C-alpha cells in the first residue's frame, strides 16, 4: 500500500511538472508573439483595405477630466460629418501617465493621446509620429508646438495660465505688489477673520504652480534647472527663492493650513467670499461657474514675487499621434486632428466646449471667461513668464516637493530657510535618480 501510494505521488509529481512546463512554454510563446508584433495586426489592415474610402477607426486617450464629455460629443459629430469612427477612452486624471504607459507597453496604445509638455513628453518620445509635414502644424502659434529633436510631434491643447485669482470686491491689485504689501494684505484679512490666500493640498496647487515663479524669473530657467539637477546651484543661495521662502512664511503664518483644504473647498470658499485670493489657473473657472452668480467680479494677477508682474502662461498638454500604430491608423488619426483644428465644428469645440485658450493662429477666441480673458490678453501682449515646471525632473512635484512642503506647513517651527534646504535636499534626491 505504502509503496503504491508513494509511486502514485511520484507519478502525480511527474504529471505536475509536465503540466507546469507545458503551461510555461505556452505562456512564453504567447508573450513572445505579442512582444514581436509591433506593427498593426494584419487582419485589421485587411479589413480597412476592403473599404478604401472609409478611414480606419481610431482611438483617443487623454488626461483632462474636464473635457472628457465634450470630447466624446465631438467624436460623435466627427462621425456624423465624415463617417469615420473615433473611440474616446475615458480620461484618467492623476493616473493618466501610468495607464498610458501600461497601454503603450502592452501594444494596445491609442491612436491619439495627450502628453504634458516637458519631462512627460520626453519620457514617451519613442512613440511619436513626426507631424512636421501635416497641414495643421503651420497654424500653431510661434514657439507653442511640441518639438522633439527638431521635429514637430505634438499640437498644443491650448495655452493655460495661472497666478493669483482674486475677488475684485475684496482685493485691489495695487495692494499686492511685493512681499511687504502681500504680507500686509494677508494680515488684514486674518484680522477680519477671512482667509487671505488659499493654496490646497493637491501637489500642484500646494507647491508645483507657486514655485514656478522663482524658477521662471531666472534669466534662463531651463539652464537653471539643469544646474540645479547637477547640484551646481542651490535654491537656498538664490535670491528669488529666498524671497519665495518669505512669501511662504507669510502664507503659513496668516492663512488656513492648505493641507486642510481640497481643490473643491478652496474654490468653494473663494466663490462664497470666505477666501479673498487663491493661487490658481484659468481652468478653475469651471468650478466657479457651478456657483452661478458670485455677486462679485474676479480677476487674475501675477504672483508678486521679486517684482514679478506677469502671469505664468504655458502649454500644459499636447495631442500626439502614436507612431507605433499602423500606417492606416496614423493616416486616420492625422485626418481627425486636421478636422479638429481646421473645420468650423472642431475649432468651435476647442474654444466653446473645451474652453481652451487656443494656441493656434487660425482660431479666434471670443467670449472667454474672465480668467481665460486675462491669460489671453497676457499672451497677446507678451506679458508672460514661462512654465518652468514643465522642465522639472519627471514626477518631482508629486513625489518629492509636495512631501517637503507638507512638512513645512505641518511643522510650526520650520522657517522658510529650512524649507528651502528641504526643497534642495528633495531636489538633489530626485535629480540623482
Amino acid at each position, binding site marked *: 500500500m505504502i509503496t*503504491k501510494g508513494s509511486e*502514485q505521488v511520484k*507519478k*502525480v509529481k511527474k*504529471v*505536475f511538472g509536465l*503540466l*507546469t512546463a507545458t*503551461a*510555461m512554454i*505556452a*505562456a*512564453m510563446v504567447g508573450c513572445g508573439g505579442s512582444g514581436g508584433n509591433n506593427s498593426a495586426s494584419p487582419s485589421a489592415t485587411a479589413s480597412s483595405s476592403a473599404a478604401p474610402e472609409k478611414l480606419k477607426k481610431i482611438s483617443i486617450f487623454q488626461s483632462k477630466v474636464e473635457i472628457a464629455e465634450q470630447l466624446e460629443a465631438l467624436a460623435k459629430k466627427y462621425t456624423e460629418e465624415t463617417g469615420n469612427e473615433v473611440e474616446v477612452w475615458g480620461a484618467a486624471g492623476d493616473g493618466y501617465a*501610468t495607464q498610458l*504607459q501600461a497601454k*503603450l*507597453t502592452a501594444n494596445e496604445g491609442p491612436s491619439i493621446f495627450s502628453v504634458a509638455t516637458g519631462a512627460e513628453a520626453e*519620457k*514617451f518620445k*519613442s*512613440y511619436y509620429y513626426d507631424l512636421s509635414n501635416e497641414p495643421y502644424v503651420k497654424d500653431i502659434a510661434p514657439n507653442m508646438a511640441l518639438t522633439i529633436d527638431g521635429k514637430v510631434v505634438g499640437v498644443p491643447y491650448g495655452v493655460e495660465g495661472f497666478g493669483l485669482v482674486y475677488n475684485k470686491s475684496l482685493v485691489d491689485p495695487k495692494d499686492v505688489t511685493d512681499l511687504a504689501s502681500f504680507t500686509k494684505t494677508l494680515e488684514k484679512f486674518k484680522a477680519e477673520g477671512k482667509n487671505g490666500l488659499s493654496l490646497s493640498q493637491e501637489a500642484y496647487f500646494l507647491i508645483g504652480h507657486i514655485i514656478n515663479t522663482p524658477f521662471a524669473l531666472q534669466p534662463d530657467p531651463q539652464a537653471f534647472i539643469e544646474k540645479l539637477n547637477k547640484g551646481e546651484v542651490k535654491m537656498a543661495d538664490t535670491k528669488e527663492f529666498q524671497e519665495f521662502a518669505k512669501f511662504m512664511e507669510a502664507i503659513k503664518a496668516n492663512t488656513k*493650513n492648505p*493641507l*486642510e483644504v481640497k481643490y473643491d473647498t478652496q474654490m468653494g470658499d473663494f466663490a462664497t467670499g470666505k477666501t479673498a485670493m487663491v493661487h490658481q489657473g484659468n481652468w478653475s473657472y469651471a468650478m466657479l461657474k457651478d456657483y452661478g452668480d458670485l455677486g462679485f467680479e474676479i480677476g487674475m494677477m501675477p504672483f508678486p514675487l521679486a517684482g514679478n508682474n506677469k502671469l505664468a502662461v504655458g502649454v500644459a498638454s499636447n495631442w500626439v499621434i502614436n507612431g507605433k500604430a499602423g500606417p492606416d491608423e496614423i493616416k486616420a488619426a492625422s485626418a481627425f486632428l486636421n478636422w479638429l483644428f481646421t473645420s468650423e465644428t472642431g475649432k468651435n469645440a476647442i474654444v466653446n466646449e473645451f474652453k481652451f485658450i487656443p494656441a493656434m493662429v487660425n482660431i479666434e477666441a471670443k467670449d472667454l471667461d474672465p480668467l481665460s480673458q486675462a491669460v489671453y490678453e497676457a499672451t497677446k501682449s507678451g506679458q508672460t513668464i514661462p512654465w518652468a515646471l514643465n522642465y522639472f525632473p*519627471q*514626477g518631482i512635484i*508629486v*513625489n518629492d516637493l509636495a*512631501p*517637503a512642503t*507638507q*512638512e513645512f506647513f*505641518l511643522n510650526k517651527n520650520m522657517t522658510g530657510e529650512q524649507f528651502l534646504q528641504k526643497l534642495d535636499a528633495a531636489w538633489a534626491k530626485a535629480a540623482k*535618480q
Partner: protein
Amino acid sequence: MNTKKDIGWYVLFTMPLIFIFTTVVIIPFIIGIGYSFVSWDGIPANPKVFVGFDNYVQLFQDERFLQSAWHTIQFTVLALIVVNLAGLLLALLVTNGLRVSNAARTMFFMPNLIGGLILGYIWQFIFTDAFNSVGEKTGLKSIFFNWLLDPQFALIAMVIVFAWQMAGYTMVIYIAGIQSIPDEMMEAAKVDGANLWHRLTKIVFPLLMPSFTICLFLTLSGAFKIFDVNLSLTKGGPNNATEMFAMNIYNEIFAYSHYGIGQAKAIVFFLIVAVLTLTQVIITKKREVQM
C-alpha cells in the same frame, strides 16, 4: 483502485487552476526576478541595462525605503494586536448567548464586505472633517483634530481603519473555534470550580490555538501587504510618514519609473513576508493542542 483513472481525474480538476496560477503568478514572478537585475524605465523602446545586484545594493541605501519598512513594522505590530484583540473580544461577546448576537455578528462582519479603498475614503472624511467639527463643538481639540495631518496619528488612524475592516473577519474565525469547544468540557470545568479567567486561559485559549494560527497569519500578511487603505486614506502622507512597503514599491515603479529597483524591492518584500509568516505559522502550530 485504478490509479490511471485517478490521475486522470486529478489532472482534470487541477489543470485549470494550475494553468491560471502558473500564468498569472509563477511566470510573472520569475520574469520579475529577471527585471530586478536590470535598470529600466518601463518604456519598451528604451534599453534594459543589466546591472547585476546593483538594484539590491541600492535599495538598502534608500532611506525612504528603510523608513517605509519601519512604518510597516510599526503598523503591523499595532494592527496585529488591535485586530486580534478586537476580533477575539467580539467573538467572546457574541458567543455568550446574547439575544442580539446574530444581528451583532452581521454588523461586526459588515465592514469587511466594504472594499478597502471605499473604507479609506469614508474614514478620510471622518478623520478630517468629522473630527475637526467635533473638536470645535466640544473643545476637545487635543483629541479631535485632523489625525491625518499628524505623522504619528495618521499611522494610528490607519491601524483603526484596518482593525475596523479585519476585526469582523477574525471574529468569524474565532467564533468557529469557540463553538467547536464542547459544552460538557466547559460545564465540567465550571462544576470543578474554575472561574471565568481560568476557563479562558486553561481551556478556551489552548483549544483556540488553530484559530490563532489562522487569524495571526491573515492579519500579519494582510497588514504587511496593505496598500488600498494606505492609498485612499493617507496616500502615504503627511510627508511620507505613512508610506508602507507596498506603496513604496508602487511609487518606485510608477512614480519614479524605476522598474528595476522597484522589482528588486518587491522581491525583498516577498522574502520578508514569506519568512515572517512561515515563522509565525511554525511557532503557533507548535502550540496547538489536541483535545
